[in-house]
């Protein structure tokens, strides 16, 4: 996995590895692979993946050289060595199926999205559920996944009047991205459906349902199934 990495010293305890400048599946896969390898091989680093870059937070006093200087250079050398190895990191991504009730009260913007794409609502649902998505990164709010892999014909601009309270579980489209609101949050993306799954639970062993690098598929459910699953989630 030899690739050109651009290093930036962001702060006393932060080094950014940039793999590119665009939102692209292959680029993001490099980021995830590097994160996996660095987490495995270098101790005490916090790795924060984004679309095309990976942030490393570290303790500068641990990474300082013998003269107490230049922790970023020491870390950069260690990172380069670690990522130079030719042994492949074969990560089989986790696949998570997310049930979604599309349209109606759960997806109030579905008809607008359909009109804007020149499709009918069923076609939007068909194309949205046909997608094979990857979690590029989590951000904006705890557990909020930015997903790559949206059918380009479903790309719609954000709302001109953002909502103050987007309901938890809302599945939404913003530009060429799709994502899921884990909590009640303000937001300007177009809401096409809602999942009964809980995306973020601080009391769970794994607080976030999704992690960067995961594979995601959406599965359409009806309103009755939504309510059943919601009851099951709540009683857990």
């Amino acid at each position, binding site marked *: 996995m030899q690739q050109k990495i651009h290093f930036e010293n*962001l*702060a*006393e305890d932060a080094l950014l590895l940039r793999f590119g400048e665009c939102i692209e599946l292959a680029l993001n896969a490099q980021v995830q692979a590097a994160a996996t390898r660095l987490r495995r091989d270098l101790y005490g680093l*916090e790795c924060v993946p984004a679309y095309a870059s990976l942030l490393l*937070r570290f303790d500068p006093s641990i990474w300082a050289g013998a003269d*107490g200087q230049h922790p970023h250079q020491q870390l950069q050398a260690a990172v380069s060595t670690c990522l130079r190895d030719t042994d492949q990191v074969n990560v089989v991504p986790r696949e998570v199926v997310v049930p979604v009730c599309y349209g109606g009260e759960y997806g109030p913007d579905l008809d607008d999205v359909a009109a804007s794409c020149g499709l009918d609502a069923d076609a939007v649902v068909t194309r949205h559920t046909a997608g094979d998505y990857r979690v590029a990164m989590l951000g904006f709010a705890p557990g*909020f996944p930015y997903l790559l892999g949206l059918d380009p014909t479903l790309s719609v601009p954000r709302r001109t009047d953002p909502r103050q309270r987007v309901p938890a579980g809302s599945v939404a489209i913003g530009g060429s991205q799709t994502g899921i609101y884990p909590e009640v949050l303000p937001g300007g993306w177009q809401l096409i459906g809602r999942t009964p799954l809980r995306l973020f639970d601080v009391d769970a062993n794994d607080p976030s349902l999704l992690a960067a690098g995961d594979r995601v598929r959406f599965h359409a459910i009806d309103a009755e199934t939504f309510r059943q699953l919601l009851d099951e989630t709540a009683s857990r």
Partner: protein
Amino acid sequence: MSVTVLKPGLLSSLQDGGRPGHAALGVGRAGAMDNPAWQLANALVGNHQGEAAIECTLLGPSLRFEHAAVIALTGAPITAHVGNVPIPMWTSCHVPRGSVLQLGGMAHGCRTYLAVRGGLDVTPVLGSRSSDLHARIGHEQGRALRAGDILPVGIATPWPALQNGDVVRPLHWSLDPQPWFHVETRPLALVRGSHWSHLDETSRQYINGGTFVLSKDSNRTAGRLDGHALRLQVPLELISEAALPGTLQLPPSGQPIVLLAEAPVTGGYPRIGQVAAVDLTRLAQLRPGDTVCFQENTLDEALARLRARQQRLTQLLETIAQRLGHD
């Protein structure tokens, strides 16, 4: 053992060293805005485990101690009384059962820390007791304290020097607030950010020597800086990447934003600078309306200052522990 919140003050919250290690899940670190002040408050009451303290903002809370307690105040100078007895800062103080501690306004600065021996022992969330007000993570969904809140105090060994008695009794010594709290305003050290070179010449000059004002829209997430609008030579379209406390971002409005303790973990604005970590504590003590100036530093200078402060703080924490052991 518990403390009851009678009046919450302007914005009081439980804070500790924060919640590192969860940024990949979208969870930021949060924690005390003035970290050394929080550490010193804990040290003064003999806490060594990163216990949670109360961070007060501009106007402090009123609290009733349901049991005798040992407390310490550090950070911005605040008026503090139990009944008619003033409570000194930068030392520890025994308060009898039933004491009502009334914290008032701050003469200077923005944030005061109140530590209690044993710590405020709420259930940790993702390894920290700090309240992330922005992400709503922590005790009671990370909200600020409210009247009626009952905060448990952790169990600590008795402290003969200050124990017992029905009177408020401070230690016979206190710390020099210098250099941990500054009244004077000096420029904040700023290291050039990734997109510094995209600024136009006027903006670069303005950052080095110009004056900004901390906007009233500032909070624990970000400080908004009003002043001369800054411009890029050509607009930049960036994709989101990780964000950090201390980053000076430039949104399209031209009014820069400096990210603080509750910084979101990702952001997409140009990064024009990074405030040196040592100066984030001074930034945390600025209040809305205060002026903000910057002075360029190299990352090596910022690192050297951080190392020096860390050594000084470690030494002081050891000295405090030794003196408390003898008292």
